[in-house]
């Protein structure tokens, strides 16, 4: 019986090691990437943010009704021209795939700043710097400054535009922010 007990201990050690080696501790939930390939125009992927339902934070000084309720945004003068927002971000199937932050600010050193960070837990993050002035047609162009994991080797552009809601069934829905990414891999020459 003692030999069986010792065998059990060894089996337990081996089993625990095997379980920790083969069974992932973290397995992020994934949604299918909705990437569209255009003839001669690379790949695009469309994300959107439903307003107001996907808004987590609107950080602006002096809001009468802060979002979220109870938010105490700093009233320092240096943050007077800063607007920070945090959202949930959705794919083309309207499924939440990540979170995003948008910072819009203006100061003498940096000028007008409009930036996005998209954080898709299963895929990586993208840091996008937008042009300050919108294009004709009301959309704004930006470029991928850098990215992590899946987005690390990519370059490309992002367009941001506001689409007002035309739904007659949902009075609360104001519209959505549409973000279209056009990213491609960088060409690396073999040495």
């Amino acid at each position, binding site marked *: *019986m003692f030999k069986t*007990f010792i065998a059990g*201990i060894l089996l337990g050690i081996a089993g625990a090691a095997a379980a920790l080696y083969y069974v992932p501790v973290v397995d992020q939930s994934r949604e299918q990437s909705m990437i569209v390939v255009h003839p001669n125009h690379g790949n695009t992927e469309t994300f959107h943010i439903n307003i107001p339902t996907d808004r987590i934070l609107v950080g602006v000084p002096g809001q009468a009704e802060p979002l*979220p309720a*109870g938010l105490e945004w700093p009233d320092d003068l240096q*943050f007077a021209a800063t607007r920070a927002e945090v959202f949930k971000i959705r794919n083309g199937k309207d499924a939440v795939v990540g979170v995003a932050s948008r910072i819009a600010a203006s100061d003498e050193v*940096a000028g007008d700043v409009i930036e996005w960070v998209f954080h898709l*837990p299963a895929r990586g993050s993208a840091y996008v710097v937008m042009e300050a002035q919108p294009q004709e047609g009301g959309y704004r162009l930006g470029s991928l400054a850098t990215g*992590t994991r899946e987005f690390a080797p990519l370059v490309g552009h992002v367009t941001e535009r506001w689409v007002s809601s035309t739904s007659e069934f949902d009075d609360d829905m104001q519209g959505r922010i549409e973000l279209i990414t056009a990213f491609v891999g960088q060409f690396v020459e073999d040495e």
Partner: protein
Amino acid sequence: MKYLVALLVGMAGGVAVFLTFLYLNPLTTTNRLSALSVSDNQVITFNYSAVATDALVYTNDGRSQVTPYPAKVLQLWEPTVRRTDARVTVLRDGRGQPAAIGVKFSSDSEKTNVLNGEAIVDSVWHIYAPGQGSLFVEQQENYWGYLREIAIPARWSSGKNWRGTWNASITSGPGALGTSRVFGGSGIFAGLESDAVESLNAKAYSVEHGPVAMDAELAIEIPRRDAALSQDP
């Protein structure tokens, strides 16, 4: 029957022995020293309280140990973001003055490997400092030391809490020296590519509420422009 019982008891003992070895494994040490402490370059620091209620906004799936703040903030309950938390906070400079607004997204990483003492979190910072510019910081954080030296002892204590002084760097990559990657977006940081290290200074922790007294510091190396332009001797 008694052989089966002996086998099962032995297996339970084996699992316990293995987990004890993992917990006490001296090869998985906490990184106490920042890689930037030996840097010749200027290092700017942003400090913040890592306690959720000290943030402007902190949110997660709503079921985790740390409660979202403020109470009515939208929670990240969808499957794809359930293991993610978002923090928006005022970052203070070395003199304790508000210097920037920082947004931090952190997600449990699939690179987590308990066998190697790696409890990895993938995180990014989006920082805007008025009068200076904006920054993006990508990092992997290893919370193994934090779990081993704070969270687990707190769970074992009769009061279900931990008090003491714990100071360590949590950044473990993606830089070769265990540093995070910094990218400047605008202002004086435009075009900057550098390294950073985030460290925690914990003083109190509660099993019920998570960190009770804990400060964090994000140190960012600013390479000297003239150093980049000078020729090799």
